[in-house]
Structure formats: structure tokens, C-alpha cells
């Protein structure tokens, strides 16, 4: 009886997760891998992978957009989390609730909100125009990369807040007091104590945000109507039959996306392992 339980318990506790991940994450990805390397009659081919060279602009745009918005989100969200965490309870729970709502505010509604604000006929755009400043003539466009970064920040910053707050709250007052007692300036405290402690969390949060932006589909789709070339949009164009491409070309694009994200993740794993060893945790 005891022995049986010792064997069965891990299966009961961990089994469902493993089974779920295997059937709904790993197998579907494997299916894509197979179809990207097979032609119509099922033979091995590299044609579709070579075709990826034609969509290098999509990858460039996607990486640029994700990197910029993730950096913005990490910096602004991180600072905000720190500034808010010292405040009274009501301010904190307001920020927390707002973060959860704003992180949900991605996608189509977010696109509409920004069109109403800084779109070509948006409120702010018209105000500036009345003041004699045409921001669209000055080179700003909501429908290009800088505009998308501005929009993405609306869900990147709240997500950063949600993710980083536990780590920021874990920064003990005593550490700061100890540093100050030894004569450290605020800058020194952050450079030598605060940031190194937070670094693994910050790095993992950055990756979280990067992935979040890289796979965003509804927001850029609603904003640019597919005019700006991004990887997820190209894939959906293939899936819904908007372009004259074989399904295997879509699988190859998807594979490219997996490779980019895989590299980022690997990089992050190595970096945070080194940091952990360095900080001795």
C-alpha cells in the first residue's frame, strides 16, 4: 500500500501537466516541423525553408518592434513598480487592478483606442493641428513601427508591473539601510545591490515582454490592416488563404518564428544561470 502510494503520488501531481503539454504544445509543433520539410507528395525538401529569404523584412520588422517595446516596457514598468511599491495600500491595489485590465486591453480594442487618440483623425492629432502642428507631416505615423511601439507599450508596461512586482517587493529595506549605513549613495546602492539582485527577474521579464510583442497579432492587424509586414501577420495570411502560398510556406514561417524565439529563450536561460551563480543564489 505504501509503496503503491509512493509511486502513484508523483503521477497524480505532475502527470496531468506533462500530458497536457505533450499533446497540446509539443505534438502540434512537431506536426509543423514535419510539414515544413515535406513537399506535396511527402518527400523531404528544403524549398520552403529557402523561400523564407523572401520574408526577411517581416523578421526584421518584428524583431525591431518587439525589442523596442520590450525595452520601453521593462524600463518604465520596472521604475513604476518600484515607485508604487513604497506607496500606501490603496494606490498599490489601484495600480494592480489597472495593470490587469490594461494587459487585457491588447488587441483590437487597443487599436481602436489609439486610432481615436493619435490616428490621422484622432483627438490629440486634431488638437496639435489646431495649435499649428501637424504630427503626421512631421513624420509620425500610428501605422508604422514607431506608432506600433507607442501602442504596444500600453500592454507591455502593465505586464511588466504584474510580473516584476513580487521581485521588487522582495527587495528588503534592510539591504538599502545596510548599504546607506556603509556610506553608499543611491546610485551605488542600485548599481551594486538593487539591480544585481533584481537582474534575473528583470531579464526574465524582458524576455516575457519580447515574446509577448513578437507574437502579437490582433493589434498590428487591426492597426495596419496587414500592410506592415510582420511575421505573425504573414503566417495568418497564409492560414486564411489571403496570399497565394502553400500551407508548407506558412509552416516554414512558423518554424522561423520558433527559431527566433528559441534563440532568445536560450540566451535568457544562459544569462540568468550565470547571474544566479554570480549572485550566489
Amino acid at each position: 500500500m505504501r509503496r503503491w502510494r509512493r509511486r502513484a503520488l508523483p503521477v497524480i501531481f505532475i502527470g496531468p501537466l506533462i500530458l497536457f503539454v505533450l499533446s497540446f504544445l509539443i505534438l502540434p509543433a512537431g506536426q509543423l516541423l514535419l510539414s515544413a520539410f515535406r513537399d506535396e507528395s511527402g518527400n523531404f525538401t528544403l524549398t520552403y525553408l529557402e523561400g523564407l529569404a523572401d520574408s526577411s523584412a517581416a523578421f526584421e520588422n518584428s524583431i525591431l518592434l518587439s525589442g523596442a517595446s520590450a525595452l520601453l516596457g521593462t524600463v518604465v514598468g520596472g521604475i513604476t513598480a518600484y515607485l508604487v511599491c513604497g506607496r500606501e495600500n490603496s494606490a498599490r491595489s489601484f495600480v494592480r487592478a489597472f495593470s490587469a485590465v490594461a494587459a487585457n486591453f491588447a488587441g483590437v480594442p487597443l487599436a481602436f483606442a489609439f486610432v481615436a487618440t493619435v490616428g490621422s483623425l484622432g483627438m490629440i492629432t486634431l488638437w496639435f493641428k489646431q495649435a499649428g502642428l501637424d504630427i503626421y507631416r512631421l513624420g509620425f505615423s500610428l501605422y508604422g513601427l514607431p506608432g506600433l511601439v507607442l501602442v504596444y507599450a500600453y500592454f507591455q508596461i502593465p505586464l511588466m508591473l504584474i510580473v516584476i512586482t513580487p521581485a521588487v517587493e522582495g527587495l528588503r529595506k534592510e539591504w538599502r539601510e545596510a548599504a546607506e549605513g556603509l556610506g553608499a549613495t543611491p546610485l551605488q546602492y542600485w548599481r551594486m545591490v538593487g539591480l544585481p539582485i533584481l537582474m534575473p527577474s528583470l531579464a526574465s521579464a524582458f524576455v516575457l515582454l519580447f515574446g509577448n510583442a513578437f507574437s502579437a497579432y490582433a493589434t498590428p492587424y487591426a492597426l495596419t490592416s496587414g500592410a506592415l509586414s510582420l511575421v505573425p501577420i504573414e503566417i495568418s495570411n497564409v492560414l486564411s488563404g489571403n496570399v497565394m502560398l502553400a500551407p508548407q510556406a506558412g509552416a516554414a514561417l512558423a518554424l522561423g518564428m520558433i527559431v527566433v524565439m528559441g534563440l532568445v529563450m536560450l540566451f535568457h536561460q544562459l544569462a540568468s544561470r550565470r547571474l544566479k551563480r554570480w549572485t550566489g543564489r
Partner: protein
Amino acid sequence: MKFGRKIFLGLVGLYFAIPLVATGVFSLWQGSNRYGFDGYTALFNQDELWTSLALSFELAVETVLASLVILVPAIFWMHLRLPRLKAVFDVISALPFVIPPIVLVAGMSALYTGPEWLVSTPHYLVIPYVVMTLPYTYRTLDVGLGALDIRTLSEAAQSLGAGWGTLVFRVVLPNLTTALVGAALLTVAIAMGEFTFANILLFKTFAVFIAFIGQSYPTEAAALTLLSFLITWAAMMGVLLGGRERAEIGGTR
């Protein structure tokens, strides 16, 4: 320093407030200089608004339940008995990033064409939603459980004669309220606004309905955008208040 702090928070606040205000103004616009509630009346008379909203909420709740049932026991066991497994779980929890929604939907629709009773109902969406929210839920729960001294807690509970059920439901879960609420908040937020899977698998959830409205009725779309924000806000406040109340009870003991 204190002044700079206020300016920074003020600017961040403005960035988040302005689009909402602009959307509000836009939703009341009725051409030239007239403003009123026509957009809202037209919107509320659409039956599809209510059905899609109800569907999305149902899916969000199911996603929360499903991911907690799958994840809490596994992460709990890892912290208690198999710390070595953390490396594996970290990789697993990162996988949904490596395989984003648009990629997963392609893979899933290629692999699973049946059974009919599962694939043809909107509840099928709960599966990809759990996958999608897995990294966030895992991180939140992992941090929460890591902060507890789970071994001491469970040894104490078990030496007092608690079984596994008592240990999980009366010791671990009550100590985990903050993490559970955080995980639930994230999951609801993501599931309610999810567009990619629903759109490509052709289910009319709330986000898909908003996109549909936005193509032809800009005022209604602005009204709907604002409304979706307010509804989620209300739901979030409810969850948050509930969570804090329980945390306070735990704190006074």
C-alpha cells in the same frame, strides 16, 4: 527626488489615461459638433454583443479553473519533493513563447480535426488558452510557492496528522492566495481579450465581435472599446477585493 517621482508617475498616468478619454469622447460623437448616446443605444440592441460577451467570460473562467487544476499540484510537488524538476518546468513554461498563438493554431488545426464534440464547440478554445497563459500562471505560482517554506509547512502539517488533501487545501492554498489571485487575474485578462485563436478557428468571442463591429461602425466600436474596458475593470476589482479579504483573514491568524 520626490518631485521627479511624481512627474514620472504623472506622465505614466497620462499615457494610460489619454487614450481612454479620447475613446470616450469619440464614442459620444455624432457628426460635426453634436454629441450624444446614439452609439451606445445602437450597440446595446445588438444581440450578438451579449452572447459573445457571455461566451468569452465563460471561457475565461473555465481557463482559470483548468490551469489551476493542472498547474498547482505539479508546482507544489516540484517544490516539495523534486526541486531538480524545476529546470524542466522552467523550459516547459517557456515553450508557449517559443510556440506563439499564431503558430500553435496552425499546428493544432493540422493535427486535431476531431473528435467532433470537442473541436466544434467554442469550449475547445480553453485548451489553447491554458497553453497561452501557462508561462504567466507558472511564474506567478512558482514565485508564490517559492516564497513559502513549503517543506517546513508540510512537515508541520503532516506531523499533526494532516493527509495530502488537508495539506493542499487547508495549508498550501490559503498561504498562496496572493499568487492564486495574481495568476487568475492574468488568465482572465488574457482569455477575455484573446483574438488569434477565436478568429482563426471561427468562434465568435467578444474580441472577434469587436473586430467585426469596428469594420463598419466606428462610433459603436469606440463605445464597445470603452465598455469592454469598464466591464473588465469591474471584474478585476471584484477578484482583487475578494483576494485581499481572504489574505487579511490569513494575516490576522
